[in-house]
C-alpha cells in the first residue's frame, strides 16, 4: 500500500498519544499479530496469549497504569485525560486482538471504583497495588456482576437498584461473608487474581444503600473459578463461572460503603461503554487488510478498489470507522471534562455512553459484514483476519447488558421514562 494509513493520525494533539500508541503498536505488530491466527485454539489455556499479556501488562507495565503514583502506579486515575487515554490504548490493542483488549480493559475496571478521582480509596489502593507492582507476571482483575438469572438486570441499576442481586454479603464482626454465583466475568476461567464483586447486603432491596462492591482476592478460601467457556471468538478474554462460598474478607474491602458503592458503580458502567473502542480497533485493521486485498484482487478485470460498486462499499466502511471514532472520542472528551458535563455516574452520561457504544458496535459489525462480502470466498478465511474481527466484534453488541439495555437507558434519560 502506498498511501499513509489515515487512521494513524492522532485523534488528539497530545504528544502522550503518539508515545502510548507507538508502544502498543510495536507490541501489537511484533507480539500479537504474527501469531493471532492461532489464538482461537488457545482459548482454554492461553499458552500463546498468556506470554503476550506478560509483555503488555508486566514487562511494559500497563497493569500499573491506573494506580496512584504514591503506590508505584502511573497515576492515570488522577489524570484529566483518563478516558481519552484509555480509548487510545483500547483501540490500539483491539486493532490486533479485540479479546485481549477486553481483558486489558477489564483489568482496570474494578479499579475505577477506588483509584479514580475524586473518590480514591487510598487504603484499598495501598492494599492491592503491590499485587500489580511487585511482580513480573501479568495480573488480572475482574468485575463479578452477571448472575445466572436475570441477565442484565444488575446493570439496569436505575430501574432495579440492585433488587435482583442474589450474591449476598453479610457482616460478621469485622468481616464480610460473601455467597453467590456469578457468570461470564471477563478475565475469569482461572485467570483472575482479584475480583470486584457486586453483591447485596439486603436481598430484594431496592435501596442503593444495600448494594455493595467488595474486593475479593481470587486466592481467598471459598472462591472457585470454573473452566473457561468456549465461544464464537474473543479467545483473548476468558470467561467462566465464579462461585463464592462463605468467602470472608475484611470489612474495609468494601469499596466505599452504603450509597456510594451504587453511585460509583454507575461510573463503572459508564466507563465500561468505552468498550466501543474494542469495535473500532478491529475495523481499523480491517481497513488495512482491505487496502491490500482490494489492490490485489479483481472483479471484471478491474482491481476491486477501482470497481465503482465495490468502491461505494469501501467508502461506507471507512465512513463507519470515522464516524464511530468521532463519536467515541467525543464521548471520551465529555467523560474527561466532568467540570463541564458533570460526573460520570449521572444518568445523562450513562445514557450518552450507552448510545455511543450501541451505535459503534452495530455500525462496526455492519461494516465488517460488508468487508467479508467484498472479499467473497476469502472473507471467511482466517488467513485474512477479517473473519476473526467479525466474530470478535459481534460480542461488542452483546456484553454489558447488550443492545436492549442500552436502548432502555437511552430512552429513560432522553424521554424521561419511569418504568422501563
Amino acid at each position, binding site marked *: 500500500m502506498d498511501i499513509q494509513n489515515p487512521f494513524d493520525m492522532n485523534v488528539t494533539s497530545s504528544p502522550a498519544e503518539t508515545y502510548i500508541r507507538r508502544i502498543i503498536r510495536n507490541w501489537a505488530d511484533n507480539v500479537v499479530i504474527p501469531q493471532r491466527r492461532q489464538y*482461537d485454539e488457545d482459548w482454554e489455556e492461553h499458552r500463546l496469549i498468556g506470554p503476550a499479556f506478560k509483555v503488555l501488562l508486566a514487562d511494559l507495565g500497563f497493569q500499573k497504569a491506573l494506580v496512584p503514583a504514591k503506590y508505584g502506579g502511573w497515576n492515570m486515575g488522577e489524570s484529566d485525560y483518563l478516558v481519552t487515554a484509555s480509548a487510545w490504548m483500547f483501540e490500539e490493542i483491539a486493532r490486533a486482538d479485540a479479546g485481549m483488549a477486553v481483558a486489558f480493559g477489564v483489568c482496570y475496571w474494578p479499579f475505577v471504583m477506588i483509584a479514580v478521582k475524586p473518590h480514591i480509596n487510598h487504603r484499598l489502593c495501598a492494599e492491592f497495588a503491590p499485587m500489580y507492582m511487585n511482580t513480573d507476571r501479568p495480573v488480572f482483575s475482574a468485575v463479578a456482576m*452477571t448472575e445466572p*438469572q*436475570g*441477565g*442484565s*438486570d444488575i446493570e439496569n441499576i436505575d*430501574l*432495579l437498584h440492585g*433488587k*435482583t442481586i442474589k450474591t449476598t454479603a453479610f457482616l460478621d464482626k469485622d468481616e464480610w461473608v460473601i455467597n453467590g454465583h456469578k*457468570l*461470564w466475568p471477563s478475565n475469569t476461567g482461572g485467570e483472575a487474581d482479584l475480583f470486584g464483586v457486586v453483591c447485596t447486603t439486603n436481598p*430484594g432491596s431496592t435501596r442503593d444503600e444495600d448494594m455493595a462492591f467488595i474486593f475479593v482476592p481470587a486466592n481467598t478460601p471459598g472462591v472457585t473459578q470454573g473452566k473457561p*467457556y*468456549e*465461544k*464464537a*471468538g*474473543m479467545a483473548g478474554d476468558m*470467561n467462566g463461572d465464579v462461585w463464592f462460598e462463605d468467602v470472608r474478607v475484611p470489612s474495609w474491602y468494601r469499596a466505599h460503603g452504603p450509597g456510594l458503592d451504587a453511585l460509583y458503580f454507575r461510573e463503572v458502567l459508564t466507563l465500561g461503554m468505552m468498550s466501543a473502542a474494542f469495535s473500532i480497533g478491529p475495523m481499523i485493521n480491517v481497513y488495512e487488510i482491505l487496502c491490500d486485498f482490494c*489492490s*490485489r*484482487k*479483481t*472483479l*471484471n*478485470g478491474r*482491481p*476491486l478498489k477501482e*470497481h465503482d*460498486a*465495490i468502491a461505494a*462499499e469501501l467508502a461506507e466502511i471507512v465512513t463507519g470507522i470515522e464516524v464511530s471514532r468521532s463519536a467515541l472520542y467525543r464521548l471520551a472528551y465529555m467523560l474527561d471534562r466532568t467540570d463541564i458535563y458533570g460526573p460520570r455516574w449521572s444518568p445523562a452520561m450513562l445514557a450518552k455512553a450507552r448510545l455511543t457504544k450501541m451505535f459503534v458496535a452495530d455500525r462496526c459489525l455492519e461494516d465488517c*459484514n460488508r468487508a*467479508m*462480502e*467484498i*472479499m*467473497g*470466498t*476469502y472473507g*471467511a*478465511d*482466517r*488467513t485474512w483476519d477479517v*473473519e476473526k474481527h*467479525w*466474530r470478535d466484534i*459481534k*460480542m461488542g*453488541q*452483546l*456484553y454489558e447488558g*447488550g*443492545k*436492549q439495555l442500552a*436502548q*432502555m437507558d437511552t430512552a429513560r434519560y432522553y424521554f424521561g421514562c419511569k418504568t*422501563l
Partner: protein
Amino acid sequence: MAITDNNFFYPVEWLGQESIEIARSAARWADSELIEKRLTLSENFDHQMHCLKILAKDIGLHGLILPEEIGGSGLEPSQAASTLVRVYEEVGRADPCIGFLSAINMALAVFVMENKDATEELKKEMASYLVGPGAVDLVSYVPPGLGDNEKRRGILMGREAQAELVKHDQSWSLEGEKARPMNSGYDARMYAVFSSASDGFFLAFVPSTTQGITRGDIIKTTGLLASRNTDIDFAHVTIPQTHVVPIDEVGYMEVSIWMDLLLAAIAIGSAIDVFRLVRDWADNRIIKGKGLLKENPMDAAVLAQVAMDIVNSRPKVHNLARAVTRPESFGIQDTRGLFILAESIFLDTMDRCLHSINRAMEMMGSAGYSKEWNVEKHWRDLKTMQVYMGGRTPMEMDAARYFYGSIEV
C-alpha cells in the same frame, strides 16, 4: 419436527405424500444423528461425514435425482425441487455444513446429468461418488470469482476463471495457481474446475489424484468447518476429453440456480433451529426480578423479528422451487430470468436469516455467543455460506445486466 411443519407457513400443497415422507426421514435423521448429539459431537469432522453418508446414501438423498439406470431413483431434478427444498430445510436445521456439502454436490450432479455434452462415462463416475458404496466421495467446485491482478484469465459475467485449459489432440491440460474451491478442496475425490480456454469456458472434472494437482494445508474458516478447504495448484494436469464439458453463461446460471435454491433452503432450516433455541431459552426467563422476558414488549418485539424473518423468507424459497419446476407459471421465459430470481431470493434469504439469528443472539446475550447453545454455529455457518456464493456485488451486477442492460459492469 412440529416446528418446521406447522409453525412457519409454506405451500404444503406443492409437496406430495412421498415428498413429505422423505422430509420426515430427513427430520428424524436431523434429530437423532445431530441435534441430540450436539453437546458432544458438534463440528466433529468424522461425525459430520458419518451423518452425511447416512443422509446421502442410506436415506438416499443423493440418489433422488439420478437416473435409475445408474443407480438413482429417477426423479426429474426440476420436478423434485420442492421436495429437495423441504429436505434441505431439515438438513439446515441440524447442521448447515452438512447441507452445504451435500447441496454443492447435488447442484453439480444436476448439471452433469442434464447436460447433453456430458459423457456417459462422466455421468457414471459422478453417480458412483453420490450413491456408490462406502463413504461419500465429495466433488469440489472451483467456481469463477475474484481475479488476481497479476494473472488474467477469461471473464464470464464479471467473474474470472481460476484455471486455464489448453486443448491437445486427445486430451486437455489444466493450469492454475492457488485456485480456491468453494467446498472441500482438501478432501475432494474430484474437482469441477470452471476454466477458460481459447474458445470459451469449460467445466473440467478432474480426479484429485491426477498427477499435477497439489493441495495446500487446510484453511481455517469462520464456519462450514467440515468443508475442509485449501488452495489448489494445477500444473500441467492432463484431463481426458470425456471429462471436459463446455459451459456458457446459461450453464453457469444453471449450476448457480441449484446452489442458490438449496443453500437458501438450508438457511431457512438453520434459522428455524435458532428460533427453537431462542424460544426455549426465553420460555421461562425472568427479568427485572418479576416478569417473564417474553412478556416484556421490547423483548417480545425482538423475538417477533426472529420469527417474522423466517415467516417472510420461507415461502419465497418454496416459490423459487416452484419456479424451477414450472417457470412458465411465473412468467419466466428463460434461464436468465430464473437465475435472477434465484440470486435475488438467495441474497434476501441469507440477509433475513442472518438478521434473524443476529437478533436471537442479541436477545440471548452471551449465551448466544457461547458454543454451548449452538446458535453461534448457525451464525458462523450461514455467514460463510453467504460469502461463498461470491459476495453481494457480483450478484448485483448480474441484476443490473438483466434489468438495465448494463454491459460494462
